[in-house]
Each structure stands twice: as structure tokens, then as C-alpha cells.
């Protein structure tokens, strides 16, 4: 019982870590064609994430592995149910993984790899939010029988075309996620660049911050109307206080970000939007706890099939304990050397420096 809750929290930490770290480099990749006016600008954009993007992406792999180990039925149901959507993400991540290195070594194909870098960043930046939106809303699962616990929808279900009619929540959260990643990206670029690029990134950061605030408000209203169960969960229907704390953190992060940006404190502005990413992950967790895959509900609140929760879909206590030991040994080591690396590569980017 306790171990299941611990693993729910640890998965939240892994997803929050991923949102903070890969969030900004997905954002940089999506902004790349828009902010990269000159070859020198583009070099700064690439080098600003060059040493760290690969390590950042490992947070996703580790979160996926941890989900597999701690809650296997969730892993199986979500990954097979979201098949085409995940394949799209996968194709994008494949291109993104090779694009920077290949571009550096193959000038003749630089245009091809620039596109691969942009699309490989933009597509996941949008689709991760859509996936989160689906999990908040709940997805239709088959009840007991031959297909028990399997996804009972298709690709379009995930875009909001549910068995109970169109629901705008998944697309809305998709846009919210994209907006957040773009803001993280612009904040990172402002932090790492100088001169004209820094001016443009700072201006874009201000605009995107307002867009992000607007998207948060729209998402709040749409969640209240189209996913009331999740909405009241955040307010404390199932789990008191936690949801409210994250909502408060989100508000704090928005104010902090505005003050920091106005004061020209680029590092603090980036910290602030990173806090927004953590807060949104926490709100997401509070909206679904103790489910990992809530079931879709009709207007009267009747569920379409069972939900997969941390209690009915977890691994054995022994596995959860073994995994906890692995995490307790591994996570501090990882955090320590990641801190070392970020410290090593801190400061403004030199467009003529090492690497791609």
C-alpha cells in the first residue's frame, strides 16, 4: 500500500524532471527556425542544448522503465492503446536524436537535419500534452473478459473524439503543454545567448508568458466543464491539500517569472518556468490519484470500463521494494553528476566553441 504510493510519487518526480529538463530543449528545437535567423544564431541554439539534451531525454526512458517495472498493466495498456500516436512520437524522437550530431558532420545535408531537429522537437512537444490530457480525462477500457483492461478506442479517441462525443480537453492540454515547452525554450535561449538573439528571445519570452497564462486559464475552464471529476480532485475531492499546494506553486511561479523577466534576471526566469512545469505535473498527479489511467466517464459520471489504479495495477511488493532500493542508490548519483555537468556548461554559449 505504502510502496504503491511511493512509486506514484517517484513516477511523478521522474515525469516532472523530464518536463523541466527535456521541456526546455524541446522548446529550443521548436523555436529553432523562428529564432535562428543567422548561421551564428543557429549555432548558439544548437550548442545551448548540445551537451545536455541526451541526458535530459534519458529521464523519459527511465520514467518509461519505472512505469513498466512498477505498474506493468498500465505500461502495456497505454503503450499498445496509444499505438499510432506513440509511433509518431517515436519517429520524431529518432530524428531528433541524430539530427544535431549528423548536421555537424554533414554540411551538404544540413537543411535535412535542421528540419529533422525542428519537427522532431515540435511534434513531441505537442503530443506529450495530448497524452496527458487523455490521462486526465480518462480513457475507455474494456471490462472483464478476453480484452479486459485493454484500450477500447482508436487514434481519434485520443484527439478527443470519445464514445461520448467530442471532448476538447486532450487538444487543449496539448496546446498548454506546447505553450509551456515554448516558454521554457525561450527562457533557456535568453539565458544562454547575448546581443540581438538575447533581445529577441527575451521579447518572445514575454509574449509566450502571456500566452501561457491564457492557456492555463482556458485549460482550467475546459477541465471544469469537460472533466469535472479531475477538476474537483485537484481541489481536494479525493486527496486534500496536495492539489491546492501545486495550484499555489503554479501561481507563485507565474508571478516570480514575470518579476524575474522584468528585472532582467534570466536564470531566475528559467527557474520560475521550471517551477511551473513541476507544478503542472503535480496538478496532473493530483487530478488522477490514485488512478494512473482513469476511466472515461459519461455525462452522468458512469465509467466506461475499469480504471487502472496504483492498487489494482502494481507489481508485487518485493519488486516495488527492489526498485526502491535501485532508485535510492541510483537517483542521488545521477542528480549529483547532472548537477556537475550543468555547472560545467553554465554561462553564455560561444558560437565558435566545441561540438555541434
Amino acid at each position, binding site marked *: 500500500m505504502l510502496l504503491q504510493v511511493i512509486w506514484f510519487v517517484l513516477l511523478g518526480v521522474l515525469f516532472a524532471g523530464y518536463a523541466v529538463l527535456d521541456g526546455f530543449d524541446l522548446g529550443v528545437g521548436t523555436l529553432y527556425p523562428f529564432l535562428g535567423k543567422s548561421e551564428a544564431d543557429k549555432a548558439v541554439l544548437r550548442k545551448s542544448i548540445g551537451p545536455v539534451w541526451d541526458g535530459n531525454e*534519458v529521464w523519459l526512458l527511465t520514467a518509461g522503465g519505472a512505469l513498466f517495472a512498477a505498474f506493468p498493466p498500465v505500461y502495456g495498456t497505454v503503450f499498445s492503446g496509444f499505438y499510432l500516436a506513440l509511433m509518431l512520437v517515436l519517429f520524431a524522437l529518432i530524428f531528433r536524436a541524430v539530427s544535431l550530431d549528423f548536421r555537424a558532420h554533414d554540411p551538404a545535408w544540413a537543411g535535412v537535419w535542421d528540419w529533422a531537429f525542428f519537427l522532431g522537437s515540435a511534434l513531441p512537444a505537442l503530443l506529450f500534452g495530448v497524452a496527458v490530457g487523455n490521462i486526465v480525462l480518462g480513457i475507455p477500457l474494456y471490462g472483464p473478459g478476453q480484452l479486459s483492461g485493454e484500450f477500447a478506442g482508436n487514434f481519434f479517441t485520443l484527439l478527443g473524439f470519445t464514445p461520448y462525443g467530442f471532448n476538447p480537453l486532450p487538444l487543449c492540454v496539448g496546446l498548454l503543454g506546447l505553450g509551456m515547452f515554448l516558454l521554457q525554450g525561450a527562457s533557456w535561449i535568453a539565458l544562454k545567448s547575448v546581443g540581438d538573439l538575447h533581445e529577441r528571445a527575451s521579447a518572445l519570452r514575454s509574449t509566450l508568458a502571456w500566452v501561457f497564462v491564457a492557456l492555463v486559464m482556458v485549460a482550467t475552464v475546459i477541465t471544469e466543464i469537460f472533466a469535472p471529476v479531475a477538476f474537483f480532485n485537484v481541489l481536494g475531492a479525493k486527496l486534500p491539500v496536495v492539489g491546492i499546494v501545486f495550484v499555489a506553486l503554479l501561481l507563485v511561479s507565474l508571478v516570480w517569472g514575470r518579476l524575474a523577466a522584468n528585472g532582467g534576471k534570466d536564470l531566475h526566469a528559467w527557474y520560475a518556468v521550471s517551477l511551473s512545469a513541476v507544478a503542472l505535473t503535480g496538478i496532473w498527479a493530483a487530478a488522477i490519484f490514485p488512478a494512473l489511467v482513469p476511466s472515461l466517464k459519461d455525462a452522468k459520471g458512469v465509467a466506461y470500463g475499469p480504471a487502472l489504479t496504483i492498487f489494482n495495477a502494481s507489481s508485487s511488493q518485493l519488486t516495488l521494494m527492489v526498485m526502491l532500493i*535501485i532508485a535510492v542508490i541510483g537517483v542521488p548519483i545521477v542528480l549529483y553528476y547532472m548537477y556537475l555537468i550543468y555547472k560545467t556548461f553554465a554561462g553564455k554559449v560561444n558560437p565558435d566553441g566545441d561540438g555541434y
Partner: protein
Amino acid sequence: MVMFERRYYKSQSAEDKSWADLWVKIFTATFVIGVATGVTMEFAFGTNWASYSRFVGDIFGAPLAAEGLFAFFLESTFLGVLLFGRNRVSAKFYYVSAWLVWAGSMLSALWIIIANSWMQTPRGFKVVETGNGTMVMIGSKLMNGPKAILTDFFAAALNPSTLPRYTHTVSALLVAGGCVAAAVGAYHLLKGTHKEFAKTSISYGLAVATIFSVMMLVTGHFQAVEVVQQQPVKMAAMEGHWNDGPMPLGFIGFVNTSAKTTTALEIPGGVSFLESFTFTKPYPGLNSFAPADLPPIQATYQTYHLMIVTFALLILGTSWMWWLNHKGKLEENKFLLKVLLWFWLIPQLGIQMGWAAAEIGRQPWIVQGLMRTKDAVSVVVPAYQIALTLAIFFVIYALLFVGWARIVLGLIKKGPQVAASKA
């Protein structure tokens, strides 16, 4: 790459730096392909093998998560240092980073072999029913929502095939790496460019390839003994052993699956001798197993024996060329240098054939004796989507291969660049 970094760390000469830089570039261009295709494999357990994931997740997920935490983070973080850190970190930090990338690769291989070995020789678990109404055959029993539960972590992780397979796999990939280094050297010696770099690459490459080809005699032996003892059906298929009795050690041959005979150049009782030190120890033949439990026999036999042939070529070829190189006679021998230029294909073929034999020979099981491959798939994914995505993967992987080959071949042709390596 680490050996060249070590050389530069000791000498701090500009020339050694350019050599090390080149190997870092070749390594990283290849590494990103590994990142891209590795993500695919982790996703695939859930996307394409959901029933398998639900059944084994309690045991199989932990090594995957541990691989991410202990290996992927280490590799990818310090690879960033290798790529971007030459002028930012101390020479010692950089050199240690190269070793950490090496350690990450070795750990990555360990965890993934642990996971795969559990599929070959599962231990440390029990099967329970969740009762969710999904009926699956487990072994010979129809069970209601079955799942395997971990009972003993160390028994599961250090199952009987983990260590033999780990040492066997790692020695194979070191041989493969050594042959690539030697081939790059051979290219430049033939062209008459970067002579010192070429000679060093050949020396390092052949030394590593020879040492681990010889090691392979030991690791391959223990791997085979493990298969004889733990997966008798697979071994019988590998040797085309139809009737109960002493098992021969074949070199090349052909299996007639309709007449149930095997014609081969073989040492009678050879496998029996290697496993038990007597030529007469009997083993069950393919005829003794239920036809439904047999793997595709011809494919298992041929892939296994192709691997054996490549191994014979490897141990003779590498040790002979290493000896000639040691005597200083290799660099004059144009013909042998041409052979060496293409010799890296042999370990590549051997690795592919070895894995094919290991995985085809385990069929029809995805987890030996427990779950059949046909019961492991994602039931909700329609066949056309599998076909479509498979076709897209072919196109994407082909594009990646072309992109990678352009870069790596370009880097090799150019060779180490002393002047340009300031960047």
C-alpha cells in the same frame, strides 16, 4: 576510443589529440544511432508486446529501469562532456569521462543481458492468476489473467544464462570494435596517408580483437554448455540432433527437416565431450520433444553454424594478422591489408548470426517454457498498423543508415586533423 584518449592523456601531444578526437567523432555519430534505435526497443515492449509486458513486468521491468538509471544516464551525460568539454574541463576530468562512457556501455550491456537471459532461463519467480478473465496458456496450463511475480531478485537477475551470455556478448562486441579500428588503419596504410595513426589503430585494434577472440573460446564454451544444460531443445536444433544419443559437434551441414536427418561435417560425440568430457553422454533428440515446442530447425542450425564459421575465421585471422603486425610484416602486405579493410564484416556477421540462433532457437517461446510468442503480442493493435509502422521503420532506418554512413566514411577518409581539431 578510450585507448586513444588514454594515449593522449599520457602524452598531451597535438597529434595524439587529433587521433583521439577522430575516434570520439566516430563513436558519437554511431552512438546517436544507438540512442535512436534503443528508444524504439524500449517503446516496443509496451506498444507491440503488451500481453508480454503485463505477464513479465513484475520481473522484466526492473532491469530496464536500472539500465536507464545506472547506464543510460552515465553514457549520455558524459558523452556530452566528450563532445563539448575538451576546452572546458581538465584533461583528467575529460579522460575520466571517457572511461565513464565506457563503464556506462558495459553496464548497459549487463542490464539488457539480464533481461534477455531471464527470457531464456527464467528463475526466481512464481506464476499467479489475477482472475481478470483474459485466458492465456502458460506452459501447458490455461490460466486466468496470469502474471509472473518476483520471488528472488538475485535468482532472477543472475539466472543460469546471465553470466555466460554477458561474457560471450561483451567479448564479441570488443572483437567487432577492434576489427573496425584495424580496418580504419588498413584504409590509411593502403592509401599511404596518416601512417602513424594507421599503424597505431591497427596495433590497438588487432590486439583487442585477438585477445577477445581467444577469450571467446572460453566464453563461447561456457555459453554452449549452459544451452545444453538449460535449453536442450535449442541445442538439439543448433546441432540438428534428431535421435536420443551422444551429440555431435558440427562444422557445416544441412538439415533435411522432412526426412528428419542431418548431413554434416562433424565430430561424433563432440558436444557430449565438451559438456561432460565423455564422447558417449546421451542427450534427448528433436524427435523426443513435442512438435509444437520445436523452433524452426533449419534456421537455428544454419545461423548457429554460420556463427561458428565466422568464429573460426576470426580467431585464425586476428591472431595471424596480429602476429605478422607484431613482427612488422603486416604493413608491407597489400593483400592482407585489403583483407583487413573488410575483415570487420566477419564479426558483424557473427554477432547477427549468434543473436539469430539464440532467439530463433528459443521459439516458439518468448519466455522459455512459459509464454509462447504468439500469446505475447498487443491484441488491440490492428495488423495494418503494424505493417504500416514496420514499413515506415524500414524507410527511416534506411535514411539513418545512409546519413550515418556518409558521416562515418567521410570522417574516416579525412582522417585525423591536427589543425582543425582546435574546435
